[in-house]
């Protein structure tokens, strides 16, 4: 059995996980400085103890579409990013869970859009399904001018 810890979080009602070793820390949503002309997925910059950290709005990144039900207390999952860091803005943080990677199942072929690119597998939990994200691909956002 190959065990792997996942840092989990929610977006709308969906449950996601990223491998915990890429995660630096989890912090509350911060005041963001908007970056004009930046790709829409990047909602702004935050000051993380002197580091300038871009924040990816995960709702936009995973194409959830407009919605009014954005929770007040969103959270930032901070990941390492090159020599610096990057934040994933999510609705709610879940537990860190230990899974057997052998049990991870393939993504249904019918999945479409960005989600299909970024989700590497699914895992059936008791009450819900965990969608495992490829953090490298999720970070891979390019400026199109």
């Amino acid at each position, binding site marked *: 059995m190959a065990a792997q810890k996942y840092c989990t979080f929610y977006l709308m009602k969906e449950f996601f996980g990223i491998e915990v070793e890429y995660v630096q820390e989890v912090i509350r949503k911060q*005041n963001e*400085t*908007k*970056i*004009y*002309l*930046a*790709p829409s997925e*990047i909602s702004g*910059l*935050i*000051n993380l*103890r*002197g*580091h*300038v*950290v*871009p924040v*990816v709005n995960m709702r936009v990144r995973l194409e959830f579409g407009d919605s009014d039900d954005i929770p007040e207390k969103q959270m930032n999952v901070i990941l390492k*990013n*090159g*020599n*610096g*860091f*990057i934040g994933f803005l999510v609705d709610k943080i879940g537990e860190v869970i230990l899974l057997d990677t052998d049990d991870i199942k393939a993504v249904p072929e019918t999945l479409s859009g960005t989600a299909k690119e970024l989700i590497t597998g699914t895992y059936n939990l008791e009450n819900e399904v965990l969608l495992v994200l490829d953090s490298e691909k999720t*970070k*891979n*956002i*390019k*400026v*199109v*001018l």
Partner: protein
Amino acid sequence: MSDEENEIVREFIIECSEQMDQVDNHILELENDPTNSDLLGIIFRAFHNMKGASGFLGFHKLESLTHVGENLLSKLRDGDIVLSPSITSALMAMGDAVRIIFINIEETGGDGEDDFEKLKSRLSEELKIAINAKKSDVKNSDSDKKEIEKKEEAKDPLDLEIEEALEMAKIRRQKQLLEAKQKLEKEQPSNEEEQPAKEKAVPVKRKRGSDTQTSISDSSIRVNVEVLDFLMNLVGELVLTRNQIVQNYVPTEDSDISKSLQVLNRITSELQEEVMKTRMQPINNMFSKFPRIVRGLADSVNKKIRLDIIGKETELDRTLIESLRDPLTHMVRNSVDHGIESQEKRKANGKDPEGVVVLKAYHESGYVHIDIIDDGAGIDPKIIKAKAIEKNLKTDEQLDSMSDKEIINMIFLPGFSTAEVITNISGRGVGMDVVRTNIEKVGGTVEINSVLGKGSTFNLKVPLTLAIMPALIISVGKERLAIPQVSIQELQLIEKEDMNKLEMLHGTPVLNLRDEFIPLLYLNEQLNIDSEELEKNEQESISVVVLHVDNQMIGLVVDEIFDSQEIVVKPLGPQLEGLTVYAGATILGDGNIALIVDALGLAQKANALSNFDNKIKKAKVDEKFDEVNQSSQLLICRTTDNGRMGIPLDKVLRLESLEKELFEFVGGKEVIKYRGNILQVHKVLNILIDRRKKNRDEENGTIDEKGKKLKIGLNEDVIILEINSIEVGLICGEIMDTFNVYLNEMGASTRKGVMGTLVIDEKVIEVLDVEDIIKTADPHIFSMDVG
């Protein structure tokens, strides 16, 4: 290969590469001083160490190559053979080969396929030739030649160190005889009695040499640059935290906290300074490779060129050194290749056949300057002009309105850098646009000064460090942004009554800045920032930051201009790298983030560069200002308050010195009888909106800055001008001199009646707009009907 082994190989390469750089220079030095045994010793040791280490690490090709080189060098060091130009070249070639092997090792982990047989046999050949040459010398000197020969054959360089000590005396004695035949250095003892002293002296000297080496290596250590960068970041954070504490501190009774704060303040500043220093490196790390490049290049084009290096200890940020390497190499190559003329041509022009290229680095006003000076042919504006027309870069009319300096600067235009240009132009032109782009990328500028027949000077100006830079904080809407000071030319506040300076040309908003149209960009539009503020303000006044980008000026309209600050530049991360309108971000004193505007990126995004230049830049409002672009003579006066003012000489009719007593007041105007007419005389200082008001009242006997009483003469210098066919006199103080100046290089105007400012001999000169002054003094003069 294990990580540990990799690490060892990496260090080996780093160390050897550094040594190779030194070795190259030492070999060049040897050319002038072929018997310098200290230098030969250093070179020998470098190859010897390299051979040992490469054998140990299993790079046998490198080992065998350095082995051959070492053989040659050991003979050189011991004076058995004498350095010849062909040996120098062979040694250089070996240096190149060693570098190729280094690259192979770095890329593949092995020392490559090529075992440099040819080079090795060349080196051995050189050795044989040199020994034979020596032998014939030795024969004449009647010394024991056979003994030398035996030694030469028997000596294995591996055993050399052991043998060395034992055979020193014998070799020395032989050497003594040989050297006696050559012209010896004066201090070299030439008779047998002094021999023992000499023998003692040499080993002692060597030993001392190795002592210094250990002490240097003991006092410095290698630190990974990443560690330094991390340290730098931490210090940046500390500075910000300190700023926050100091800002939030409310003075109370408790003076202990206040004291601690002061100490914290001081320590933080010192720490910041010291950490900055660790990133600084002497520019010599880059300069040291140029003697070699210049020598090689000069050889290949058959020129004689001397390279002088000044200020090699000048320090700058190591990342900057890296980014300057290519542009500088390019420019030095250009100087050698195109700048310096052929030996024949130089002789024909009465110049020293040996050309000189000077590399000069120095600090000035917070920037590092690097000058590349050559005493070559200079750049001929005529040829550049012809080329510009041929390439359709400029029209005849545009060129006519340009100064020589502007024309020469056209070699930086992108279209200029084609291979075709080099062959047609005796000057330069290869990829100079790339050079400038690279320099500007690191926040620097490059300028040319060229005198035809005398040579050219390229001046590079770069910031000391990339990590911290002075920047102007501005706002648009609710956003605060930073603009690097280096790209800012000036700030303009356009008041309501001056709104006519904003015009539309070809549907493009432009600003009329001293009668030149510069493109105007609204920062809110460029960045899609909502800014209602701006529209309201447009009625009152608008703030324009005039940027200097790519040798052009661009006006950037912002909402508000705050102060200038030293900012720490932080990268935006790989996701936003493509966003060229920003150069990064910084954290302001209050902890908020401000994006840093990249002037070049912004101008490119807005298409405000060359495109605009071709269309409109040179369009003039008024014909009378066409002359602004050409060199003109300026009459310089010293005003009674010790200021300097300049009047374009072409406006001046005559200069007169008139007796003060003859001045009269008629109808509130000062007049004087002059050549049978009545001449109205205006005192400039009375007319200008004066920031030096207090001086005006004491005009006839003020005290200058040094407190020295200015001489009050009986006469007044009067400048006679002709305005609207009427002669008018202007009193502007003591007339001093005339200067040739380019009025288009003027800085901002200081007050009404002044066209702009220039700096001549370190004095600021206000260039007067005489028409405007006279108009102010006598509004009717222009409407007067002169029958």
